[in-house]
Structures are given as C-alpha cells and as structure tokens.
C-alpha cells in the first residue's frame, strides 16, 4: 500500500517514454513544413532531450502525482471536517432548550431572528414515534416554508415545500419526507405512527425520500412533516429545537438572547464544532503533515525540473551559440521549444497518475480518521490540487529556460564556442 504511488508511476512513465518520441516526431514533422528554423531545430533536438531520461521523468511524474495526491487528501480532510460539522449541528447554530427552559414561542423566534447575521431561524419539534409494529421512527415536525428557507442556506438537499403541504390531505394522511431507512419501515402506503406525547397518533404517507436533513443531521430512521399537522389538545406542539442559519452571526449577542429568553438552553455553533475538529491533536497533526508533504513534493519537483534542465543545458547552449553565429536570434523560443515538450509530457503523465491514484487506492483509504468522526469522507480528484502543482512546474520550467537563454546572451557565444 505504501508503495502504491511508486507502483502507479512506473507504468505511467513507461507509457510516457514510449509515447514521447511519437509525439515529438509528429511535432517535428509539423515543424519541418514550416518556414522558420526555430521549431525545426528545436524539435530535432527535442528527440534527445535529457528530460526523456527515465530517472528525471519518473521523479517528476511521482513528485507531481504525490503533490496532487497530498492536495486531494488535504482537500478531502477539509471537506470531511466541514461535513462532520454540518452533521453535528445541522445548521450554523443549533439551540436545544434545557429542562428549565421556557417554551419556544414566536416571540423567542423573533428575538433570535433579530440577532445580527441571522438569516433564517426555524423551530423543529423532534420526537420519537413508533409504527404499529413497534419500530421506532424519529419525526421532525417543522414549519415547511421556514424550514425550506433554512435548508437552502445549508449544504443539505433542498426541501420541496409544495410536496409536503401544511395540512393533511383529503385522505386524512399527513405527507412526510422520509429517510431511506424510514421508508423501509413505513412503506409506501399509509401508516399510523404513535407517540407517548399529546399528539397521540398520526397517519402518515411517504411523499418523498430525503437522505439527510438539518433537523436530523446524523441520519437514521427519520421523517419530516409539517408541524401544523400535529394537533394535540392545545394545538400544534411548541418546537423543542431551533436551527439558525447565517454566515456571520453575532455569537455573543445570540447567546445572550438565548440566555434571556430560554434560560438554560444549549447553544452549539457549527464554527466551534469545526474548529474543535480541526484542532484535535491527531487530526491537526496529520493534516499538517499532509500539507508539509505537499510542500516537500512541490519543492522536490522544482528541484527535478531545475536539475533535469541543467543536465541538458550545456548541449542546448552550444546549439544556441552555433545558431547565433549563423544569425539565428530567437534563442529563448528555441530553448523552450526544445525542452518544454518533455516537461509538458511529464506534467501530463503526472496529472494522469494523480487522477488514477484516488481510483486505485481510494477504497483502501479511510479519510474519516483524519476528521475524528464516523462521517464518511469522499476521496475524489480535486481540480485545484491537480492544476496547481502542474502549473507551478510548467511556470518554473519556463522561467528556468528563459533564464538560461538570457545567461547565454550575456556570456557571449564566442567564448562558448572556443571552449567547445
């Protein structure tokens, strides 16, 4: 497993070394049809570029793939931690009243909604119900419109208000959205749910499936229905949970408002959960090592490019000097046209390797260990992680070649030709 990137890079490099001459010959044939000498000379020399050696090519491909791979892991960890934080709170802020809390009234909701930064706040009545067969189902009763607005501000799947409605349908059954596990329990027909609370019994019908939702972020066997559909002796029950969404909520103010209105309610900020996940020693240290590896791989990649180019620089400089004597002035283009095909080929191979790696070893890697939660983390190709190292290598190669051409111009061709 530890040697997987190396074992993936080897066949990729072998294929690259086979394809490179074909590609360069094609370019050579194209350049031969042109009128300029630069492309022709460069391509003819490119066939023997030092970067086509096995070692630099292999090292560059491996460095690029490792840098991209580390970038993907780093991105995956960040995504995983973010997902885990959402799965913990369900929204940007989760407010859970304590035993001594006052009931959640519209006035409380209004006070919370007026806190700076709060965009949406909605109450949820979450209780345990059982089917006629005794199977437990958690039911989250919500205000459909307010809940849909809140869900839209989270990464959870959207909540189609129209399909759930606010009142029981003509058949007397309440439409609910159910999790896949709840659908297996409730079935597709009409089912009766019972609770020990004042709501007593309710007849429900599954109107749609929802994999996850802010009211039940941990998933499981749950259903979401309209709060108005639950009618106890004193009307719909008061919510027992408040979900708040907003990008820059004034936490201090919100905590104060909650303390004033609900007394001993627990206020959980998603940002705090995320910070605690990212700062736990094991996860923080591991993520730091991944980032350091990325940097190291990038630095080594740059070394490879510089050394690889330096190994062939003497021959390139001599060619440039000879061509200069013959009146050819486009030295920089010549150097770049000669060396860049090999660099580009290695970059392409490195990117191919990096794309292949997650598919090959992704199933064996459990990134959830990095997030400290049981939330599964998807390990997927990341465009930035792929493009950034590749772009850096190409930019460095261009800069190094430009510097090489400039150095030659300064040194003068006479001395060089004499030396050779």
């Amino acid at each position, binding site marked *: 497993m530890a040697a997987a990137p190396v074992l993936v890079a080897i066949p990729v490099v072998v294929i690259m070394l086979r394809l490179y001459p074909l590609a360069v010959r094609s370019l050579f044939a194209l350049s031969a049809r042109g009128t300029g000498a630069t492309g022709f000379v460069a391509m003819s020399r490119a066939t023997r570029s030092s970067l086509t050696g096995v070692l630099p090519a292999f090292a560059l491909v491996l460095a690029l793939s490792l840098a991209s791979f580390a970038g993907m892991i780093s991105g995956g960890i960040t995504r995983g931690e973010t997902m885990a934080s959402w799965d913990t709170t369900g929204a940007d802020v989760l407010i859970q009243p304590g035993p001594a809390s006052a009931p959640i009234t519209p006035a409380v909701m209004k006070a919370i909604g007026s806190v700076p930064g709060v965009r949406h706040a909605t109450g949820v009545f979450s209780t345990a119900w059982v089917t006629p067969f005794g199977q437990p189902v958690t039911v989250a009763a919500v205000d459909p419109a307010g809940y849909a607005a809140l869900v839209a501000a989270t990464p959870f799947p959207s909540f189609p208000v129209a399909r759930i409605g606010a009142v029981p349908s003509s058949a007397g059954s309440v439409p609910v959205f159910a999790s896949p596990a709840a659908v297996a329990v409730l079935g597709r027909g009409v089912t009766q749910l019972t609770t020990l609370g004042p709501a007593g019994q309710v007849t429900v019908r599954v109107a749609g499936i929802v994999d996850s939702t802010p009211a039940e972020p941990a998933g499981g066997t749950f259903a979401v229905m309209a709060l108005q559909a639950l009618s106890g002796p004193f009307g719909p029950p008061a919510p027992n949970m408040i979900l708040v969404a907003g990008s820059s909520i004034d936490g201090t103010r919100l905590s104060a408002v909650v303390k004033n209105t609900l007394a001993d309610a627990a206020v959980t900020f998603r940002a705090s959960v995320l910070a605690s996940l990212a700062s736990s020693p094991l996860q923080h*240290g591991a993520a730091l090592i991944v980032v350091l590896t990325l940097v*190291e791989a990038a630095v080594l990649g740059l070394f490879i490019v510089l050394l690889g180019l330096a190994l062939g620089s003497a021959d390139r400089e001599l060619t440039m000097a000879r061509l200069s004597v013959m009146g050819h002035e486009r030295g920089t283009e010549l150097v770049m046209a000669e060396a860049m095909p090999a660099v580009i080929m290695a970059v392409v191979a490195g990117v191919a390797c990096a794309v292949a790696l997650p598919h090959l070893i992704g199933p064996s890697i459990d990134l959830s260990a990095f997030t400290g939660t049981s939330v599964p983390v998807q390990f997927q190709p990341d465009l930035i992680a792929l493009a950034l190292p590749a772009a850096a290598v190409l930019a460095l190669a261009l800069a190094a070649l430009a510097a090489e051409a400039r150095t030659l111009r300064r040194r003068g061709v006479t001395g060089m030709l004499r030396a050779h």
Partner: protein
Amino acid sequence: MRLLPGLNRAVGSAAASTLALALLVCGCVFAAMAGPAISLHTRSEALHQTLAGLAPTTKTVQVGANWSDFTSALTFYANSSPQPGLTGRTFAEARRQVRAAMAATPLPLGPGAWAGLSSTSFIVAAGAPARAFYGPSPPKLEVLYRDPLTSNATQVAGSLTGPAEPAGTIAVAATPQTAARFALHPGSRLTLATAGATVTVVVTAIVRQRGGGSAFWQQDPVAGVPSLATPAGGSPYWVGGVIADPDQLAAIQNAFIGPGLEMQWEFPLAVGGLNADQAQGLYGALQRAATVTPALTTMEAAADTLNVSSPLAADLSEFLGTQAGIQTVLLLLFVSLIVIAAAVILLAARMMVLRRDGELGMLRARGGSLGQVAAVMGRGALVAVLPAAVIGAGLAIAAIPGGAASSGLGWSLAAVAVAVALAGPPLIAAWQYRKPTPQPPGGAGPPGAARWLRSPRARPPWRAWSCCTIRASRPAAGSTCSWPRRRCWWPSRSW
C-alpha cells in the same frame, strides 16, 4: 588551512553540484526525520489526551478470581488437607506471583497496586439508623479487604488494630461519608444478614480517603461513599462499604466463606511515558494477558482460576483504529517522498559526474581503473554528504518537538537518503566510464571530448573505434578502414 586544498581536490570542478548535493541531502535527511517525528509527536499527544480523559480504574489491569475456586485449586494440587483459607503469607505470595506474571507479559505496571477480597452486599439486619433506610428499604453493606490500606487511607478516629473479636465478627474501618450515612463511630456494631447466618462488623476506625481519585478507591466507589442503588423493578436502597482492618484477613474469609467472596488484584498501568508507536505493543500485551493463563510459579495450580482484563484495551483499540487509518496515508506519503528524494539526489549525483567529466575522462584515458573513478567520486560525495546528513539530522532533532531521534521510521528513511547520496556518484561515474576511453595521440583530448564521444550521436560503431585509433597511430593502415575519416574525433596523423 590545509583543509581547503583537500576539499578542492575532493570536489574537483563540481563544487556547485557538490554543494547542491549537500543541500539536498541536508534537506532530505531533515524532511525524512521530521515527517515521522511530527507524526509520532502528534499521535502521542493524541494518545496522552485520550488517556488523560480516562478514569484511573480504566488504566489498570485487573485480575480476579473466585476465592473458593482459587483456594480449592491450591489445596487440591498441593494434595493437602483442606485449608480454611489464605494466610497472610500466601495472600502476599499470590499477589507477588500475579504481579510477576503481569510484568512478564510484559505490561508496564505502575505504582498503586493493591490486592483484596470483597464480599457481595448484604442487608444490614441490625444496627442501621433510620437515615440509612430509603423509605422502608433497609441498607446494604459490603465488606472489603484491601491491602495496603494504610498507605491509601488516613486515620481520623479509632485504631486499625482493634482487640481480638469472636468468630463471626470482623473489625472494620469506615470512611466519614459511610460513617455519616450509617451513623458509625469506633465501637459501632452492624449485623449483616448473610445466607444462613449473621455476621457482625465492629467499627474500629474512621479513615479518610487518601487519593480519592485513585484506582484503590474508584474501583468500588461505595467503599468510600455510599450510594443510592435503584434496581430495575425494585425499591431503591442505600448501599455502602466498610474495609476490614489489615489483620482481619482470616476473619473475613471465615465470615464470608462461600461463593460470595471474590479475590481481586489491581495493577495501575504506567502509561504516562507511552508513545503512540508503543500503543500497539501495549494493546497486544493486554490482549495476551487476557487470553493466556498467567504464568504463576508455585501457585501454578490456581492460575486457571484467574480472570485477567483491562478496560484500557477497548480505548486503545479505538485509538489504534484511528491511528492505523492515518498511518496508512502518512506512510504512503513518506515512502513516496523518500523515493522522489532519492531520485533527485541521483540527478544531483549525475550532475556532479557530468561536471567532472573532463577529469574522469582523463583518469580513464590514462589507465585509471573503475575503482579509481568511483573512489574520486566517492570522496567528493563523502565530504558533502556526511556533514550535510549530520546537520540535517541535528536540525530535525533540535527543531521537532519531542525529538526526532525517537522515530525509527525517520532514521530508516534518512538512512536511505544518505545511502543513495553516498553510493550514487561513484556508481553513476563507474557506469558512465565502464568502457575505457581510447587515448588520443599526444595525450588526452580536450575537455568534454570523452563526453562527446560517448554521446549517442557522436559515438561510432564499435568497429570504428579501432579504425579511428589505427588511423590515428598508423595512417597507412587506416586507409583500409571503411569508417569515414571526418567522423573520427581526433585528427589522424595524415591531417
């Protein structure tokens, strides 16, 4: 001042390349040691955080046995007449042998170990005040024997060595909390209703817990503080515990002889200095201790009756699972990095050889052996690599918290980098100059000539080598050669 000419000779015309190699080696050794060291440090930090959150009783290895089974096994295999119980000497010997067996597992045993006997809880039939009743439910009391008691308790009142009591009576000590609930003081008597008989406990001392959070007191919390037990489907009742005086070993065995008396040995584990790499070993040792019969010596007959367990195993297992997930990814990154580092070092080595091309070509042309070529490059590599490696390792040890020296993986990876850096230049040079360079007439060719000869474009077929050489030395003979004169790199005498 003699050093500089020596260095000059060693690095030759490849000073810049040698410096590059040195920098690379320094960086690679630092990175090779720093990565695993940071990994070990953070994993160990996480392990310590996990362990710090655990109760003292969790960080112990617990050995238990039924008193009846243990003493019967000893008696049966000793082929002696049935003994009424354990004497103070055999009790101490059993403790010593169990400890030795645990230490041999091997488990890191720390201070604070204790051994004891404990009864089940019995209803207090007489002597309990009204405050010890919960409604109509009478209280229950358990009697414990713990050794050592004196180092874990401070005497507040009375004495731990009371006068001799009649059979069926046990002299005990109680904590102030138990004393308050059961209205106890030195001289108080409680009657416990055991199966078929009554047992009287006489309080001789009131003792305060010393280190109330220790495994000694936390293993059975009611030993120090009474608690309200709420059995499922039954009425709640108060349950407390008293500890038999140190000289009451025989009395407690006589009073509670039967299936209700349990033996316990508890050994706190010294996990304070444990690092994450050692966690797997500890987990394995705990598993082994729990599954393999303890290796007692003279009491081997009773070894089968011992049950060994450790609550720490479950927590360690969870930590190791997380660590394994992280280690898989990190090891993958480290191995790939060191392969890349080795490749870069080899590139630098190749550059060194290239820069000393003229010197090495000359050496070969003058009849130098491959060993000499390799030695020249080896010297150059040595003067650069060894100091660089030492500096890199020193930086890593100084800069990484917890010390990079403690990571075996780090040393292994650094050794790979150093080995490649030391072996690379001589091997590359030996490979490149494996064929002797033909000596041109009048001495060696100009600098770079040998390289040009070896380049794929300039290299003539092997037959042409001899042709050119012959033409150069004997122009007349060269006329028979088919290889064109213009493609021989050195001028023939006829030019």
